[in-house]
């Protein structure tokens, strides 16, 4: 099972509603994935600054961390977004690893923030305050675990590169081999999860200079298994289904947005849905939308 929701806005007037609409979509997809949920959201960036999304153990004092580092920190339940100068990211990561070993850096980027946790999707999104967030695009996932344990680490999205995230419905069969290959290419992995390998593959492609559509084409040859992927980059939003296309996917496009749902009912509350162009993405065909930077 698993459920995927994605929303890519074309009309900036809807940006304040992005979090609320995404939270609504994920709540509907509870029945497809009740064990954990997560989302990545692309909000405003600050020029010259990088957002580091951190996850800590229960009760971790993020405020003290922000004060110690002298950087702005926004706390959301057991996650926090630390805003650091882009050129200091490497140094901050070294300090975090050395002095705060209990913390995990779950995502980094100029605009993307990423939150995930165990529990019913509606509870998870409420804990992080998704409904109050704004941005240009968001990707979320509700998980029914098959390939690895029900843990926060195993929840989606996975991020293996700056401003990059991926969610997955399905299971990959060549992920161990691919993980070994990617490790040789200096892609790092935090889990044994198959989806993280798909994210790592795309990060490797993008790092090598491929555009999102070319990276997704390459995934068709490299990844074996069942998948519907929805991926996000700083300016882009992509969808790919494997050639057999067992995993469901419905898309809706209007002048204002492109939406993805594992099922239509996830999109039933979107504004203007009754006039949207509804279609199922074709198997083995790359779909992507890019925003003007």
């Amino acid at each position, binding site marked *: 099972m698993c459920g995927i929701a994605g929303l890519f806005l074309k009309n900036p007037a809807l940006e304040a509603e992005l979090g609320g609409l995404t939270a609504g979509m994920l709540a509907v997809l509870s029945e497809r994935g009740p064990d954990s949920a997560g989302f990545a959201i692309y909000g405003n960036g600050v020029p010259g600054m990088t957002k580091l999304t951190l996850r800590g153990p229960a009760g971790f004092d993020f405020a003290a961390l922000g004060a110690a580092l002298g950087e702005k920190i926004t706390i959301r339940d057991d996650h926090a977004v630390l805003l650091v100068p882009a050129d200091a990211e490497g140094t901050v990561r070294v300090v975090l690893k050395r002095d705060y070993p209990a913390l995990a850096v779950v995502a980094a980027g100029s605009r993307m923030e990423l939150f995930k946790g165990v529990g019913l999707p509606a509870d998870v999104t409420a804990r992080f305050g998704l409904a109050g967030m704004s941005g240009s695009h968001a990707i979320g996932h509700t998980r029914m675990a098959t390939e690895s344990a029900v843990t926060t680490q195993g929840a989606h999205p996975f991020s293996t590169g700056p401003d990059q995230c991926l969610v997955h419905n399905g299971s990959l069969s060549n992920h161990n081999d691919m993980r070994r290959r990617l490790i040789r290419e200096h892609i790092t992995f935090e889990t044994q999860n198959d989806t993280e390998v798909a994210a790592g593959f795309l990060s490797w492609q993008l790092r090598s200079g491929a555009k999102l559509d070319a990276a997704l084409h390459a995934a068709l040859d490299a990844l074996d298994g069942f998948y519907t992927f929805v991926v996000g980059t700083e300016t882009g939003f992509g969808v790919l289904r494997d050639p057999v296309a067992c995993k469901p996917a419905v898309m809706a496009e209007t002048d204002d947005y492109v939406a993805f749902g594992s*099922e239509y*009912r*996830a999109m039933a509350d979107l504004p203007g849905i009754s006039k949207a162009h509804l*279609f199922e993405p074709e*198997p083995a065909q790359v779909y992507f939308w890019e925003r003007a930077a």
Partner: protein
Amino acid sequence: MNVALRTSTDVVTFDLASEPLRALNAGLAALTPATNRTAWRITNPRGAHAIAVGVTLPVDITIEGHVGYYCAGMNDGASVTIAGNAGPGVAENMMSGTVHVLGDASQAAGATAHGGLLIIAGNAAARCGISMKGVDIVVKGSVGHMSGFMAQSGNFVICGDAGEALGDSLYEAKIFVRGKVASLGTDCEQKPMTPEDVSILASLLRRADCGFDPATFRLYGSARNLYHFHVDNAGDY
């Protein structure tokens, strides 16, 4: 039966925005042959699953909007119209009656269905008519890959194009295609159309209110090479 139903001009209107799906299906299941509630209108389906499954009486049901998985599954006699798109497995395992999708259908439409008529006015996705066992299916648009997989009997009319591997491992269903076929599946081949085939096709096109000339279709059926085990293939297993 303690189900909140509103009857007006003999049509039972059921609003899924305010009443639970289980009450609808329980209400349909509780109908008896003597019922006068023979016309149903269902509003606000919003992609819900399993709407109007297992109906066993010849009632008319119109669903105003998009439906989710398995709508009208196991239908046995009802005439169900979906004024919208259908999710996966519409009319799966239908026994008799008619299911008419006015929009597009997702994958596995009409899967394993034994009888009745499934009409899809738009396109159908992958695996349409998979393992069909006697149903008649008319798709006015195109169908996705692996359609008619292991189709056993019945007639499958595709007015548009067919995706990859049409009729793979086909048994004795007849597949009529008007448009292009991306590729044929294993053991599926084009066959000459007999007058009886033309008559079957013409009748289905008429029932689906489809104006195409039967002569513009091609017939595909089983080459029957997979019916028997060939000892030369033993090494493949």
